[in-house]
């Protein structure tokens, strides 16, 4: 197996036996953001800190991406191998809703209110001998 590394730094804890999302929390007003940012969207403060956002949530809304997106979409897929994927917003314990790909891609399983759990999955090989990884959520009911 190729060595794995995050597609982008700072989105989730890695490597980790129980990865969680990383975001920021405003020191002044307490609002969270994902991904982390150095200023606060709510109150304009520049005092923020990196915090863990956990690995669980609830599906707040969802859709299914049925056609292969044009660039900048960049995975190992080809038009022939493309598989429709779920996309949703997951409401986390801190209250923010994080946009994510979903493991499930069927109207039979996806529903608002579904309990969801984080997982780290491959996106593509980077051509330099690494497998690039990103986060997605999957139903916690099906596990």
């Amino acid at each position, binding site marked *: 197996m190729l060595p794995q590394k995050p597609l982008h730094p700072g989105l989730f804890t890695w490597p980790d036996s129980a990865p969680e999302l990383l975001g920021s929390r405003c020191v002044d007003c307490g609002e969270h953001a994902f991904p982390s940012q150095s200023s606060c969207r709510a109150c304009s403060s520049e005092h923020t800190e990196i915090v863990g956002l956990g690995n669980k949530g609830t599906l707040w809304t969802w*859709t299914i991406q049925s056609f292969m997106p044009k660039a900048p979409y960049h*995975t190992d897929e080809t038009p022939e191998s493309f598989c429709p994927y779920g996309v949703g917003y997951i409401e986390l314990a801190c*209250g923010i809703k994080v946009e994510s790909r979903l493991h499930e891609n069927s109207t039979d399983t996806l529903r608002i209110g579904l309990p969801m759990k984080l997982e780290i999955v491959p996106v593509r090989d980077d051509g330099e001998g690494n497998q690039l990884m990103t986060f997605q959520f999957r139903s916690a009911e099906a596990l």
Partner: protein
Amino acid sequence: MTDVAIVGLGLHPFGRSPALSGLEQGAIAARAAIADAGTNFKAMEFAFGGSQDGGNADSLVNLLGLTGLQFTNIWNGCATGGSSLNAAYSAIKSGQYDMGLVVGFDKHARGAFNPQPKDWGLDDWYGETGLMLTTQYFAMKIQRYMHDYGISRETLVRVAEKAFRNGSITPTAWRQTALTTEDIEQAPMVSEPLNKYMFCSPAEGGCALVLCRADMAKNYTNNPVLLKSAVVRSRHYGSFEVFSPSQAPAVAPSPTVTASRAAFEFAGIGPDDVDVAQLQDTEVGAEIMHLAENGFCEHGEQEQWLREGVTEINGRLPVNTDGGCLANGEPVGASGLRQVYEICHQLRGTAGKRQVPNAPKVGYTHVYGAPGISGVNILTT
């Protein structure tokens, strides 16, 4: 302070024009608007224009004439036309200029838009993993809205049916074939719950308007339309927006709500006074949600409105009488101006087969676009 009047209307029909560049389509629209006002390009003291993929709007002077006018490029996503109108409104209202041109045009490739994360302050991973599609955002927004307010799939279908029916009686529309309920219901799914006929397509086209001081308007047209307000607003923390890797816990009103309220306040009228409206309908859910966000009905009331035909041409509040974005496609730079073009024809009484009955006097236009921006115009006879 003087009112601002629209005295010239020009359109290069939306759709596909392989022989013409985007800029050329803008020039055709500009010449048509200036001819409609019975004047010439030399009389234009200023111009505001914009395009996403068609090039710099101020290059139009090479085609229209090098007269030395102030020509300012405007780029504000889907609100480009609204922002151009807002700038023209302010230029005339302030007394700086008496007369000028607003123009928008575009020429997009086929298929869904493919925005680049860096242009929107986002990192590449967001686009690379397939999260940066406007189609997904609109699907997820209406999905949640259907859940919260009991909107049915039948209502989604009704909006598409109306759009193509209105397109079929609009000579300049791109899609002029009415579709049956079955045609729409059975179309391939694009992004659940929205299928192929529920989305508009990126397109080409141009649109232009000539504006002047209202006290000069009769020199140019017998039926000027007054631009009573031209408002653009961006999003607040907590509104559910496109291109957002995360959304705030609290839910705040969308920029449509704040733009609409401000526009009504400037115009000194309310939603009940509006006789005909154009609401951003890049997909059917948007038209449904924008009915409530613009203050025309309560959230959830759209279910009954669509069933009863309130938004049909003969209804109490006709919406998207020319088939909207669904039947005309969306050349981003021109789309917001097409809405105003259609409302002006409705208020002039020159909308042909799609004319709203009983001489409408108050019109309304609304756009919404990335990354959470809205433009509203209120027009009167």
